[in-house]
């Protein structure tokens, strides 16, 4: 059982919804980013998604693209991203970290070596945007063997025929993408999302968390009501991009988390 499984077990026992936040590792620089990540659990974050910077984030909107560029310009790499996770783990052994990014930096590092290094750094799960079930042999199956969760995205285009394939070899939770589109673009609408979450939950016992298009405490609450939790990324990353201090960023996160937890 991973930290992710334990977290959702606890939330379920408490009858609460979860709040997941995304920040790009190393944005705007290593130290500021570490300060923000270290403050997330106290701000109410249940699961931390840590962005792995990549030059060509094809599923991301301008906000996350720019965050990746800032991080890369500040010298961020896969190794430094794992180092950031390790530093976080020095003080926190319970909050799960999901590494989210694209396959090439991992492939370039070498899958076997990456899995060992990620495990040592205290990473609990992976979301790799450009690895659909058709490419499970690449990383998904080796990752599960190594004891890491492999979290898959389900989208509005994942129809009932395809859903079983997406749910196979998935663990930790299912990340439902609320819109067809890129991060930070359209707004999620709870009345659209609710039936979709129900459709997925009919085929799996895993928690279903919804992300993309959630920017306010109110939406965070509305979406969490119809799912097991909500994810916010771009709205937080926007503030980091505007040069807000870690305290200001964390204050905003606290509002979003309270939104989800009030659901």
């Amino acid at each position: 059982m991973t930290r992710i499984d334990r977290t959702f077990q606890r939330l379920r026992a408490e009858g609460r919804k979860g709040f997941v936040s995304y920040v790009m590792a190393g944005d705007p620089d290593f130290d500021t980013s570490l300060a923000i990540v270290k403050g997330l659990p106290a701000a109410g974050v249940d699961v931390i998604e840590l962005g792995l910077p990549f030059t060509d984030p094809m599923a991301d909107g301008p906000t996350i693209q720019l965050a990746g560029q800032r991080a890369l310009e500040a010298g961020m790499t896969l190794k430094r991203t794992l180092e950031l996770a390790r530093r976080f783990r020095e003080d926190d052994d319970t909050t799960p970290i999901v590494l989210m990014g694209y396959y090439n930096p991992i492939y370039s590092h070498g899958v076997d070596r990456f899995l060992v290094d990620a495990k040592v750094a205290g990473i609990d799960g992976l979301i790799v945007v450009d690895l659909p079930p058709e490419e499970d042999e690449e990383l998904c199956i080796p990752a599960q063997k190594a004891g890491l969760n492999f979290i898959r995205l389900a989208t509005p285009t994942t129809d009932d025929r395809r859903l079983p394939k997406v749910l196979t070899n998935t663990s930790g939770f299912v990340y439902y993408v609320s819109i067809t589109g890129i991060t930070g673009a359209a707004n999620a609408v709870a009345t659209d999302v609710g039936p979709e979450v129900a459709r997925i939950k009919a085929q799996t016992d895993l928690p279903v968390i919804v992300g993309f298009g959630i920017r306010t405490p109110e939406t965070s609450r509305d979406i969490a009501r119809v799912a097991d939790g909500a994810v916010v990324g771009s709205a937080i990353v926007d503030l980091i991009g505007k040069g807000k201090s870690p305290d200001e960023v964390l204050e905003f996160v606290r509002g979003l988390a309270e939104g989800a937890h009030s659901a």
Partner: protein
Amino acid sequence: MANDLTNSYKTGPDENGRFGIFGGRFVSETLMPLILDLEAEYERAKTDDSFWAEMDFLWKHYVGRPSPLYFAERLTDHLGGAKVYMKRDELNHTGAHKINNVLGQIILARRMGKTRIIAETGAGQHGVATATVCAKFGLKCVVYMGAHDVERQKPNVFRMKLLGAEVIPVTSGRGTLKDAMNDALRDWVTNVRDTFYCIGTVAGPHPYPAMVRDFQSIIGKEAKEQMMEAEGRLPDTIIAAIGGGSNAMGLFFPFLDDKEVRIIGVEAGGKGVNEKMEHCASLTGGRPGVLHGNRTYLLQDADGQILEGFSISAGLDYPGIGPEHSWLHEVGRAEYVAITDAEALEAFKLCCEMEGIIPALEPSHALAHVMKIAPDLPPDHIICMNMCGRGDKDIFTVARALGWDMGQL
């Protein structure tokens, strides 16, 4: 048996879209159902005579195929060695080979009921071809083009606009073909229901590399027949320029199992294949990685971050290469070399002066390699190079590179 499939180089890709370890379907879940639908539609079309009848009709009456196979006599005499033939795909409607593939994809899009076409473009040739065919069929067309390429390929930008396409300059990254492809993929993820992504090269997720290759193979198929007619035998060497590699794959594919034919792909060497990476030679200076839906050779740093290429030719300015080329490189069926900007410019000038043909900067790279090897080959050695595009779009770039002031002519 002549068609011994176990010894054929033409059986790829496998059912997972792989050529050896290369290729695949590395896309986000939102796009997966779309590329599976496309694959199914393409598989149906491939064996549908009415599909190919429509293609053949349009290739003949709209594109102007077959393109001639032309013996470059003065160039041959000048080089003093091998006989040089040019496959004249620059004479196609819209001025390059790109339209061969666009027609196929747009006919598929129509069969699938899609009403909005998106495309990425580097030099603008694929964008122009897509805008052209969309105009012909009354489809909405949106072309993503790097802002840097918009600057250096202005005539093509204007052509696309005349043809009714919306051209969106892409400012992310360094504003070249790679960034245009990222934004086209972002558009596709957002507009999945009505939009068809018309990819211009033999890259991207399966089935694109195989599908684009099949549509471009008309080049090699014609070249083979025309060479038999002209010389009574196959060429000894075939040569084509490579960015993503669609004109090259189109020429090479029908020859892959003719093992006596030497196959050479020419990558853009930019300022030289050096550690500063001022080039676009993915096979010569890159290593395998995953980008834009496929595994292939890529220009990347030690951390797996993608590097921006460098080339005078916008059409070759791409840090990757089609996965089938990566495979042909690894199994050794084709050889890949690099030509610098300076060498390509020399070939450009020579072709204008010797043959009265203004070539695009892309095939100028192929021609530059012909100039390198032809003098040392015997007179009965036959080279066929792919003149895949005409150079009208490049005259401003060439003028600048040669230090000419267009205002003072």
